[in-house]
């Protein structure tokens, strides 16, 4: 079976762990629990007749307290850049992290997830920002770990891009 490494990157509290929990275990918790270190989950995804074992690396959020080790990204076939739609600052961090991915895993597929679509009326990120991201060549998917909106879609899409 093909194995592929996917890395979840983004600022703190954007919902990386929640997205993985929703995708892998179909659970969601409102409570914010900061991630320490690295957690690797696995899930087998079927694309057509091909089964792919996804190794999903949940890295701690990037902020002043914790910096992501570039070594964690090495060998990744796909990277999710997760942004919190309600916090504009997480977009800037997301864009910085794209550069880190380009340096350390230049062949990795990149998908941008704007999470918390269930709170869309509170979003700070607007259509222009999303168009801006698309213009620089990245596909943007609006997700919600809470309502499960587009979570499966995002993982399937990145798997297809990796194959």
């Amino acid at each position, binding site marked *: 079976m093909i194995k592929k*490494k996917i890395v979840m990157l983004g600022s*703190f*509290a954007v919902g990386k762990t929640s997205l993985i929990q929703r995708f892998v275990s179909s659970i969601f918790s409102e409570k*914010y*629990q*900061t*991630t*320490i*270190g*690295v*957690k*690797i989950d*696995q899930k087998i995804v079927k694309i057509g007749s091909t089964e792919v074992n996804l*190794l999903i690396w949940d890295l701690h*959020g990037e*902020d002043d*307290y*914790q910096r992501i*080790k570039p*070594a*964690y990204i*090495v*060998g990744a076939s796909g990277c999710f850049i997760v942004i919190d739609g*309600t*916090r504009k*600052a997480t977009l800037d961090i997301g864009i910085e992290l794209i550069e880190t991915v380009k340096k350390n895993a230049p062949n990795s597929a990149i998908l941008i997830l704007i999470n918390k679509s269930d709170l869309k009326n509170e979003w*700070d990120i607007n259509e222009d920002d999303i168009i801006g991201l698309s213009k620089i060549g990245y596909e943007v998917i609006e997700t919600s770990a809470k309502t499960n909106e587009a979570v499966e879609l995002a993982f399937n899409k990145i798997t297809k891009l990796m194959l």
Partner: protein
Amino acid sequence: MLTSLPHNIIEYLINELPPFTGVLIIKTDDKGKIIGFHGPHKEYLRTKPEIGKPVHEYVPALYAMIPPHISPMILNKVLSNSAVYADIHLVEANQNEYWIFLVDQNREAESIRGIIQKINEDKLLKESETKIEPGKDCNLFAALDYLSLKIEEDENIIINSNIPWWFSMLAPEYSENDKINIYEVFPYFEVFNIEADEFWAKKENGKIKSGIWIETLNDGQEIALSAIAIYLNSNKYIFVRLEEEIDKEPVVLQLAREQKLAYEKLEKAERKLKTLLEYKDKFVSIVSHDLRSPVAAVLGIADMLVNDKKELSKLDEFYIEMIHNIKEEMLRLLDYNDKLYHWSNLELGNFKVVKEKVSLKKIISTAYRTAEKKLKSKNLSFSTNLKKDIEIDVDMTLFLQVINNLLANAIKFTPENGSISVNVTVGDNLQIAIIDSGVGMSKRVSEGILSGFTRHSSLGTDGEKGTGLGLGIVKKILDAHGFTINVKSEEGMGSEFIINIPT
């Protein structure tokens, strides 16, 4: 000294006074046999001491210590025969008697336990040089919950004699001496191995530590692990260990991030609020501006009717009074509307203070002329102590409005035959005080009176309705000038509004 103290005094010292509280005192002879004891023995010893028995049976650390080589002798942070770390002081009272003091040091011992643990771990690694062999006993590492692996030609062999509990729950299919693919069990090693390979390639004895990663055991429990890669006499090892300290770290990090999130939310709410306030001010500004024309038109008509004596003569008294009321109310509405318009523009910052040297005398006399009609209608006296003119650096139009508003306010709240004065004092600051002999106000009212929208707006002495905006405008204009204003007032004793102008 203690030996000469009566027993009840010693007892009091030990039980009640802070430096001695909780101390266990044991007295022995020169053979270490217990003669007597006092203090909370249960805290330090597993069993109650018996007279005549050797003290080392209760405190093993004192074996062969009595008589001591020196007196006093202090043994620091000794784990006594229970879970208590104690400092043990051994003091010779005379050749046949020795006093032992056990002082609880648990808190301090706990705080340094982590450091000691680290030092001991490093010592263990150094000592492991001859001990670590595949399949051989290595109980020390097992005791520390280490999974110890020796790396041989890309094969990873478990070398523990005892598999740590967490590994049995993570990968139960493996046992001692099994060859394992470490990347299968710990995908995290794909990263750490890059660093470890670089380190091993140097072929220098030493170690490097990995980051922390989380694994889920077969019962769903999550554990934090870290690894140490070791190079020792041409051998490569990896120790994987349980990070028990991890529980403390998230608490701090979690709190810091929760605080940051709360701060971000607050900032967002503040931005939203500012935008809403701006909308409100713009709305008020537009509405009050657009209302001015129709209000002025109605006022014009009312004025025309009031002055049309021919037409008025055809009406009875009731309707004449009604027309007068319409005019009065429209005047009030226009005044309120103008203030609202002015206020909203001040809030929006739609004004600029253009300072120039202006005669204070001129400002006061202009304001007096504006207020003259109202002053006379209430028979109020007006005075000022300003004899010699002073030039002040103000925006003439705006500052005149300040004095106009303060005078209008004073007139409103001063009953007939009262007095109003404008007193000027030159000192560290130039002070202009508008003083009235009016009804005054309570402390509660005076505290919020300059905010613009006071809830405690009251009727004037002639029943004039107030908006509270006039004084709010005063404050805004003075703030823009860099001046301050104070209010002194007491109910029934009049009011004093003092403008402070830095000189």
